[in-house]
């Protein structure tokens, strides 16, 4: 069902720290991990799960560290991976950056955390805000013994009681990321929006919040079908949201954690025009040169503006002597990523810009063929959501009856935005 042990390894496979939870697998099996990983990589059979006679390794890689879990049983492997990612998140919240150095610097706390996060291989409390109340880096300075926060076993396991703010405020960010995949002849293969509502909550006590959106299902069920609404295809909520309540009447009600968190995410397929469209003409003259003609078009409303637009155009790794010409923005050759990056600080809607690039190619061709990486686009459009989602209200009720102000911001940005070239 669960992990037998957790290891954190450096990039060479040396164990930095480990914790044995079940004692059913010899801890030295980890010595086989790195050689096996190399072998699988060589064979092109690399998967995040490696099976051996003694056990199964499941691992993730982050910042040049491997987090490895072992098991001998038919473990719930989805749980293991989600947990490993959560582990990274908790440690990052504790030590800012999870890396080799921060592990050595904090090994005592890490042992304490590993003890609290998992018991016998079963994940327990993983909310770092709550953990920080009784597992602290300055533990040795405290004279009084720490107590378990009530939240650990409470139904509301993500918020402690007795939080106080002089000014009660809530910030809501509605962030929509546009994922796009277009093929080389200009057809959009996939276009979807992954939205997220992120909150920063500075509220005293145990406030009850209710969020109102222009959700199509809700509008239709309450007879407001004609108003402008958005059909959310799949919604995922932070654990604080009462899911059964949402299932019944689409009400989003919750007691929020303190501080910053992601309240919900949603996904919807769009049929809108790609916000920024790129047309590319690439002429390769083998052994001599390659020429690029890139046209960028903004296809959103004129009154909106995209900021920090960056168009990343892949070029062959053996290209040399770059030459650029453009009407706007700056163009830089980034040989370390084999790309040309065209940045436009401010790109208003309904405009079209052009950039030309020219590279020399060596006369001797390189042996291994290169892939055809897609053109990628990064951008941010403030005060705008592609889906048209709107926060209609955020009701805040606390028994002390204070007034709190919600602030809402909208922003649309690129997600996985790829346009294939030919």
């Amino acid at each position, binding site marked *: 069902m669960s992990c037998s042990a957790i290891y954190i390894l450096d990039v060479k496979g040396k164990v930095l720290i480990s914790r044995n939870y079940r004692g059913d697998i010899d801890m030295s099996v980890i010595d086989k991990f790195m050689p096996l990983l190399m072998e699988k990589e060589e064979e092109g059979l690399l998967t995040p799960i490696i099976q051996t006679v003694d056990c199964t390794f499941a691992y993730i890689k982050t910042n040049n560290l491997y987090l490895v879990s072992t098991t001998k049983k038919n473990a719930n492997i989805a749980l293991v991976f989600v947990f490993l990612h959560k582990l990274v998140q908790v440690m990052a919240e504790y030590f800012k950056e999870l890396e080799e150095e921060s592990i050595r610097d904090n090994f005592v706390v890490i042992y304490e955390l590993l*003890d609290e996060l998992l018991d016998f291989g079963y994940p327990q409390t993983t909310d770092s805000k709550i953990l920080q109340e009784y597992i602290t880096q300055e*533990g040795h300075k405290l004279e009084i013994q720490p107590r378990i926060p009530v939240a650990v076993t409470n139904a509301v396991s993500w918020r402690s009681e007795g939080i106080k703010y002089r000014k009660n405020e809530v910030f809501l960010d509605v962030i929509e990321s546009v994922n796009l995949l277009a093929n080389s002849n200009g057809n959009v293969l*996939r276009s979807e929006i992954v939205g997220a509502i992120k909150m920063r909550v500075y509220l005293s006590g145990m406030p009850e919040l209710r969020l109102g959106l222009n959700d199509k299902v809700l509008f239709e069920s309450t007879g407001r079908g004609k108003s402008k609404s958005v059909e959310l295809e799949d919604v995922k909520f932070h654990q604080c949201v009462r899911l059964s309540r949402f299932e019944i009447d689409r009400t989003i009600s919750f007691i929020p954690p303190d501080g910053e968190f992601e309240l919900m995410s949603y996904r919807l397929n769009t049929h809108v025009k790609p916000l920024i469209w790129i047309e590319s003409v690439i002429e390769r003259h083998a052994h001599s040169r390659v020429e690029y003609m890139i046209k960028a078009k903004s296809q959103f409303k004129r009154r909106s503006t995209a900021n920090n637009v960056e168009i990343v155009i892949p070029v062959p790794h053996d290209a040399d002597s770059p030459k650029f010409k453009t009407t706007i923005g700056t163009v830089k050759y980034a040989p370390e990523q084999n790309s040309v990056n065209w940045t436009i600080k401010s790109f208003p809607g309904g405009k079209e810009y052009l950039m030309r690039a020219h590279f020399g190619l060596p006369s001797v061709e390189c042996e291994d063929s290169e892939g055809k990486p897609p053109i990628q686009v990064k951008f941010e459009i403030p005060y705008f959501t592609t889906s048209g989602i709107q926060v209609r209200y955020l009701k805040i009720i606390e028994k002390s009856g204070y007034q709190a102000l919600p602030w809402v911001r909208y922003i649309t940005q690129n997600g996985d935005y790829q346009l294939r070239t030919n």
Partner: protein
Amino acid sequence: MTDSKYFTTTKKGEIFELKSELNNDKKEKKKEAVKKVIASMTVGKDVSALFPDVVNCMQTDNLELKKLVYLYLMNYAKSQPDMAIMAVNTFVKELPSSQLAKDCEDPNPLIRALAVRTMGCIRVDKITEYLCEPLRKCLKDEDPYVRKTAAVCVAKLYDISSGLVEDQGFLEQLKELLSDSNPMVVANAVAALSEINESTPNGQPLVELSTNTINKLLTALNECTEWGQVFILDSLSNYSPRDDREAQSICERITPRLAHANAAVVLSAVKVLIKMMEILAGDTEFCNTMSKKLAPPLVTLLSSEPEVQYVALRNINLIVQKKPDILKHEMKVFFVKYNDPIYVKLEKLDIMIRLASQVNIAQVLSELKEYATEVDVDFVRKAVRAIGRCAIKVEPSAERCVATLLDLIQTKVNYVVQEAIVVIKDIFRKYPNKYESIISTLCENLDTLDEPEARASMVWIIGEYAERIDNADELLDSFLEGFADENAQVQLQLLTAVVKLFLKRPQHTQGLVQHVLSLATQDSDNPDLRDRGFIYWRLLSTDPAAAKEVVLADKPLISEETDLLEPTLLDELICHISSLASVYHKPPTAFVEGRSAGIRKTLPARQGSEEASAPEATVIPNQESLIGDLLSMDLGAPAAPVSAPIVAPTSNVDLLGGGLDILLGGAPDINSAAAVAPSTTGLLGDIFGLSAAPAMYTPPKVCWLPADKGKGLEIHGTFSRRAGQISMDMTLTNKAMQAMSGFAVQFNKNSFGIAPASPMNVPVLQPGQSLEYSLTLNTAGPVQRMEPLTTLQVAIKNNVDVFYYACQMPIQVLFTEDGTLDKRVFLTTWRDIPSANEVQYTVNDIKGNTDAVSSKMTLSNIFTIAKRNVEGQDMLYQSLKLTNNIWVLLELKLQPGVSTATLSLKSRSVEVAPYVFQAYDSILKN
């Protein structure tokens, strides 16, 4: 200040130094020393020698120090069991277990929990004695944090000493915790119970969940942490609800979990829901609603971290096989992104093929072609294979797929070409006589093939189509030069291919066949190769005609879906969604040792639902073993029994002797000249559109050979069966200006071995004259599976020319007179045939009552075995037998006054079903 300084002491007398520091009176010094010990332990140094000194520090108020000492204790108690026990024995009054027990009563719940948690982790038998009392208390502790820790501790104890847990009544206490007021305690108790249930010695769960507990769990589900939700959902997936109502209510209460941000919660919820849907399969509406709700969360899983995506994709692969409807519209989300990790790319490809259908095939193919030009070799190979699989799966796309493969072959990228050739071999097998025109292109790439599978495939193609490749002998000869260096599968394939070539074109290939036979039988160490060589040799020398029958026998058709999981395994794996088993696609018993594998899970039996009516594809082994499959196919008997050879065996034993003359003067190759065949659909419409009512229903004559194709000869015809004798009834008309004579007829090999029983004996046909001729047929001819099954290709010769046409036999002429089954035999046979072989059909426009129907059918050799009246419906149980001994069992459900009837058919050769249905249609409507 950081902890890294603790790692830096590497002086010589380190252990000694640490020892004295540990025994220092100052608390601060002591703690520093313990930290140094733990640091050494972390980097893998053996500090077990300090055991008594470290354990001595246990008596402290400092929580941090206490935790470190406990950690040390857990680490070394196991690896140094003797010392641990010694420590226990020597300091039994104080250390360590009694201190632990004392800590279990500490006023601070954090320390109580810590103590009970640690005790469970000291996996030394002797310590368990000290554990029972404190554990019992902690399970009843007032603080939920302690109770939830104690719950897990029961599972730990069970792992060390299962007897103790049962004897001491901990199971009962654990069960009580399922009703605890705190959701976290409930969740951990469930986790502990599931673990214990899975590891019982006899594999039987110790604690069964009751409806009551299920309700409590469902309530706790809304309140506990995300992880607790996973524990609860996983244990719910082992529960079998009492009735449909309960199943439905569980579904309703679990569905909201699909909106949880944690992917593990979502997948576990999916597992429970799919299991419940299986129970509720009868309620189509409910299942459809559920299916709709399942799709979006599954798609969203593809936006999670790559490792989670991988697990999700492996599971989706199972779900798509079990419930193809759920994701049938979601093809696009499985398109591969440039920056996906390779393991995600490969899994996405697999699912794309599973979802490929006529609707989306264009998109899929253009994607696959794009992938085939990428750089990652493994991915490219799989993409090329995927194109081949699409061709086999989605018939109308075959031509496009072949064209795409040809384009790819033109790229001359070595591994692409090889992969393409391997899949083209499969396409040839699926669609015989359709795409052979590309063989020449394939042959151009012969020299570049260096992988055994590709070489073997190419050799197979050459052998199979030896008659169409002019220089087949030269090509094969070139392979023989390096015979000894070839891989075994290529050697086997070469042997077979050369023998095929010899049987097809014996003129100039005798040297070649002798050469390969001697290579195989005399120079090889491989027993398989030698055996096969000897078999061929004997066959060729004793009975060349039989050799032809065997070696050139028809291969069973390749099935549509490759590597489908076997249904029972699939059902088992569905019960293990989100676990390792679902990723490996293997049952837990295959990789978990001993008892902890748990009992075998399977989906509950469906209630009130009819078996799926869609015929399931037969499972054939995956790509890797396909070539092996092909190899063995040559010797295996085809689906229909091999009938007697056309030519009587000669006694001439000389390998190169006169017996082969027969081969040389073989029949005209009808195969390649079937172009005149009229479209089959129109033909069938004609056959069944008109009515006539003879004793046994004979369809009216249709035009087989129009005068303009037959140089003036026009043939109309039909088939009939009279007194067990099949005949082909023809009307021959001469519309030419000259007399026709010298008529002869020959049939191509066909599915049922139909052949003329006597030569055609037609007098001279004068211009303008028309005459009726009935050709008696038998079923002793050579068998080759045709598509459609009832196709018969005919060659008619006269003094003018040879004409070819294809016609469809109504299958009822093949129903034999001895097609009755004993009632009991009928019943057992019906039960023995797997439900996958059951097909249903609705017959419309039935005339007459049940008895009339029954007697009408008997005239056509469809025999009614039994008749039953169930709830106002007449059920007729019928059987029939085809000339090639295929039995077909049927159940006809008639309602008086209603002209439609439901027909269920079961047969071991279910492919005859559509034709039988046609027969029913035509018989019952006339």
